[in-house]
């Protein structure tokens, strides 16, 4: 079969010593970043992009490094959820509910290894899903003209807030802000400068890497500076791990749960506006409804650990489908991965599969390799990661800030970019206070120019007729989905959000 020969080629590309080394490094760093509270997958990848870029890695090796970080962070998030009851990243929130009670009952080791296996199962099936679904999506994407692409971008922005968004005005504000920032610089079609205010540094536009690192990494540093009095360090808690292998009976009991959750998570990852957090939430709720007959969920039921972990790792793989096939990411971290591709001069989308099959299949092979590595890293070496959890923020955060500066300075060697980055850091801090989501801003700066080009191309082809935007059935369909996706959270947003929070409280009460 064609797919398998492609995959074999991919493995041939990915299985070099350099790439294996990078995958291992990425898995290791990713697990650490996922495990440390405050550094999620988006942050982790964001900090490392400029570095991968300045180190002069070619496209496939950089992608292998960064997607390994991405998968690794998804694995790592569970460690602090289980041991400290603090989610290492947002998707790991649901893992706290049963993971922490399990750890308190003295089954921390079992919970960690079981969730590691669940993560593996989720990610493994999602990677297969990616292999089979992405080429199908590419076939559809080949039918897209500029008008359809414009509608698709609009869809991405309108659904990005997600079903759990409570304030769509803020999501829209963030998207518009990001798009507005993308407009800065010389217009690519007519060559006139826009919004540069005579500043020569701005003629090239804002570098989106600067924006990403500032918004994600530096604003995190500011948050820590603000909260340092309130938050207690993870110290003082005794971490008893116990045995590191789950009993076979436990694995057997959890297998159907893992398979169902992988499926649910994968679908949630592929759909626009859902992402990994919703993936783990949905799989947990579904399992609770299906198998929780004796009301043991929330009190340390192993199935309650397996479900969200399989779900969020499957969603992580699923989220790569629209990113690679359409060039439109559905979640924060895939938006950051899109930035990686764009800064390597690779435009994802249907042409990527036709022109750079080596990148696509090398990446997919790397995902499999990373997944096996992560399983190997996470079961026996989990003790090492738990010790790293004890690094206090007062040491960690300066390192994060300085590595961010190094990465950005390494790209351009200009102090101006550093100043812009600090500006973005402060802006990120203020916007977080207002609960304005940051991901649409990133996506706006990334996609703004492409979106505008598609709009202008579509209308220029039709000699200035704006109605061409809703001329084809495909475009109309996309607009309808976009509008539904934007309105739905207005009705259900609060319900889903409060559902997530109520479960959180339930988990807290049963402690």
């Amino acid at each position, binding site marked *: 079969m064609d797919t398998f020969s492609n995959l074999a080629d991919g493995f041939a590309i990915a299985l070099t010593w350099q790439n294996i080394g990078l995958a291992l490094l990425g898995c290791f760093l990713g697990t650490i970043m996922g495990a440390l509270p405050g550094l999620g997958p988006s942050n982790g990848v964001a900090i490392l992009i400029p570095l991968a870029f300045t*180190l002069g890695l070619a496209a496939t090796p950089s992608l292998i490094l960064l997607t390994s970080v991405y998968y690794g962070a998804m694995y790592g998030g569970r460690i602090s959820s289980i041991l400290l009851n603090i989610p290492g990243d947002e998707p790991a929130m649901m893992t706290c509910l049963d993971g922490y009670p399990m750890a308190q009952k003295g089954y921390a080791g079992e919970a960690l290894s079981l969730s590691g296996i669940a993560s593996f199962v989720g990610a493994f099936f999602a990677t297969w899903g990616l292999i089979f679904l992405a080429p199908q999506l590419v076939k559809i994407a080949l039918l897209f003209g500029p008008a359809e692409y414009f509608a698709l971008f609009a869809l991405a922005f309108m659904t990005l807030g997600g079903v759990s968004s409570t304030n769509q005005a803020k999501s829209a504000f963030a998207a518009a802000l990001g798009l507005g920032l993308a407009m800065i610089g010389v217009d690519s079609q007519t060559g006139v400068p826009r919004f540069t205010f005579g500043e020569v540094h701005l003629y090239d536009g804002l570098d989106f890497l600067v924006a990403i690192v500032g918004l994600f990494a530096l604003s995190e540093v500011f948050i820590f500076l603000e909260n340092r009095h309130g938050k207690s360090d993870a110290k003082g808690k005794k971490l008893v791990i116990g045995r590191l292998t789950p009993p076979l009976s436990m694995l057997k009991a959890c297998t159907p749960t893992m398979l169902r959750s992988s499926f649910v998570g994968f679908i949630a990852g592929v759909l626009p506006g859902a992402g990994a957090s919703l993936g783990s939430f949905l799989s947990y709720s579904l399992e609770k409804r299906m198998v929780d007959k004796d009301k043991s969920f929330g009190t340390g039921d192993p199935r309650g650990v397996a479900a969200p972990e399989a779900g969020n790792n499957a969603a992580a793989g699923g989220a790569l489908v629209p990113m690679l096939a359409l060039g439109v990411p559905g979640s924060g971290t895939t938006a950051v991965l899109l930035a990686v591709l764009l800064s390597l001069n690779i435009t994802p989308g249907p042409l990527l599969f036709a022109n750079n099959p080596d990148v696509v299949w090398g990446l997919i092979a790397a995902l499999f390799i990373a997944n096996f590595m992560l399983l190997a890293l996470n079961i026996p070496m989990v003790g090492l990661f738990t010790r790293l959890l004890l690094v206090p923020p007062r040491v960690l955060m300066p390192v994060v800030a300085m590595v961010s500066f190094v990465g950005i300075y390494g790209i351009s*060697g200009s102090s101006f970019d550093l100043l812009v980055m600090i500006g973005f850091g402060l802006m990120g801090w203020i916007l977080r206070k207002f609960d304005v989501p940051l991901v649409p801003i990133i996506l706006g700066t990334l996609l703004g120019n492409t979106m505008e080009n598609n709009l202008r191309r579509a209308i220029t082809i039709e000699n200035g007729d704006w109605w061409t935007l809703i001329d084809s059935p495909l475009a109309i369909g996309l607009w309808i989905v976009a509008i539904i996706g934007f309105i739905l959270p207005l009705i259900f947003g609060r319900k889903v959000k409060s559902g997530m929070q109520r479960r959180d409280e339930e988990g807290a009460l049963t402690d």
Partner: protein
Amino acid sequence: MSDRIFGVFGVLLAIGFAIAASQIKESFLSDAVGPKAFPYIIATVLGLSSAVMALRPDPEPIWPPFAQFAEIMAAAVVMILYAQLLPEIGFVIATAFAAAYLSWRLGSGIIGACLTGVGTSVGIYVVFHLVLGLSLARGPLGF
């Protein structure tokens, strides 16, 4: 109240953005849409969403007391100084000071902060410059 102020600020930003867009000089070689249309669309979305925020505000966010606000501003100033001084005094010295400051403000003792600063700086220098060959800012002392 915060959301209302923020919304009003957003509306002003949108108006400013639209005015700046209207100032764009059109080239004589323009496509059918031109460089202004998309910015106008963005300004509209920005203005409308800000107006909604101002009219239907969320619950008040928790603002830090003035001391912590000053803390963040001070950190930003240190970072700005860092960015400006980096090419002057070189990577290792500038980074050691900046990292030590941040570590101190995040709750380390003086000695711990100095150790973190020097450790971060030398660590990054060794890993990224000596091992990986990334070019960092070179100061008068050669590092």
